[in-house]
């Protein structure tokens, strides 16, 4: 079975959020909905060597939307079957069936499904499936000026980008996300460092 996936290169992302804006523009999202979010992560500390303060700091960005998981917890949880997975792996919501119970947002470890107060329905990234069907790129991928976002078939991408998921992404075992990442080069060997999300208010 085909499975579309997003790829993100953490090394070159400048955090411009053009991907967020392109997504918002394409889907005409209100202010309180963000189908794609750019998390600003930082961690580390300053070490002291006599009078010398040495920085051991790492900062990187992660642009994240729905990961269209291979084993989507939201699809299993949805009581109305409004949350569906297509043949090509894209997970989408059928607004004709969604009753706005918000249970999918509890089940998703990535906080991808979001409630639209205007319609009373759940919403989420649909991989711009109308564009995909027309042979075009998803709007976030097309808008990225640094070309750090890409998409393609999951298993082929995993071979090219074998990096493990990094903070704040939860373990891949939970839902098998269709998401590949190239870790920030400064992060290598420092995965156990304490990290935090700097723009928590913005992304939550």
């Amino acid at each position: 079975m085909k499975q579309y996936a997003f790829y993100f290169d953490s090394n070159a992302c400048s955090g411009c959020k053009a991907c967020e804006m392109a997504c918002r523009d394409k889907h005409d999202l209100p202010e309180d909905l963000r189908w794609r979010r750019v998390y600003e992560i930082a961690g580390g500390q300053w070490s002291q060597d006599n009078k010398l303060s040495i920085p051991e700091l790492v900062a990187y960005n992660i642009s994240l939307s729905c990961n269209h998981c291979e084993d989507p917890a939201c699809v299993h949880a949805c009581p109305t079957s409004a949350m569906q997975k297509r043949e090509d792996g894209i997970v989408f919501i059928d607004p004709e069936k969604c009753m706005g119970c918000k249970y999918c947002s509890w089940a998703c470890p990535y906080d991808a499904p979001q409630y639209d107060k205007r319609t009373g329905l759940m919403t989420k990234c649909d991989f711009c499936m109308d564009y995909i069907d027309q042979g075009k790129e998803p709007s976030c991928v097309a808008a990225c000026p640094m070309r750090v976002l890409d998409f393609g078939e999951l298993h082929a991408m995993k071979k090219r980008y074998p990096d493990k998921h990094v903070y704040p992404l939860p373990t891949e075992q939970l839902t098998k996300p269709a998401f590949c990442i190239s870790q920030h080069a400064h992060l290598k060997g420092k995965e156990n460092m304490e990290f935090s999300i700097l723009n928590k208010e913005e992304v939550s």
Partner: protein
Amino acid sequence: MTGSEWTLVFFTLITQMCVGGFILQDIMIHYRHHDDPNILKVKKGILRTLLPLIIIAVILSFFHLGKPVHAIYSLNNLQSSWLSREIMLVSVFAILLISYALIFWRYPESRSLLKIIAILEMITGLFLIYSMSRIYTLSTIPVWNSMATPVEFFTASFLLGGLLLMLVFQRRLFKLEIRELANFSRRISVLYLLLIILLMIDLGNTIYYHYIDYEISRMTAEDTSYIINLTKSILHIASILILIPQFYQFNIKKHFSGVLGFRIIFFLLILAELIGRYGFYASYVSPGF
């Protein structure tokens, strides 16, 4: 928490109260008791209380939906969604309770039919509480994903249901000498004891949640969960301290000692459960984020 989530909390608590109340009343009031007019009055009083409660609960369940009209599709995913299963079970439970009450009032002599419906109702009720707890035991929310969640749901069901029964018993049996109730007083003593044990289990469970909040959410003394767990524990201890002397007096004097005690415990417990559920939602931490 938003207003719609509060309606979900009330739906859960009222449904749990109805399930616990129905199961306990059917175990306590044996069908041979139906010949006793006093007990019959009590049973009618219980059903008269449970019936509007379950109807209110079902109505409340619609208020947390963004699009209630689409609730007609809510049974579409019975094979994998615990919410779908809960909706089916609560509907069956409500229908069975209404049928039971109607048959009891109109045809009280149909004891075999009542027995069959009661057994089906009890099984449905137990599965309903289990599916309610499974809705929250999600592997993607580690704080909720433990045995403490089903324990909390089952304990709350029998605690709230048992206290509701005690209130009805007191109201209906208060003026009667306990000897007039034959061996029924022994069953009330057992219910007293059960309530004390359940309060202690619930207290233990709250302490366990406190521990999980520390471990997973890295809770500090300033966090809402910390204050909530502490308040809930104090309310439980207060309930136990009121209930134990009442139990003692009931066994010595063979008489209910005042109506106020149970009303206070009921109020304290509802408050504890509401605070607890608020804390439960407040402890929601998605892994990583």
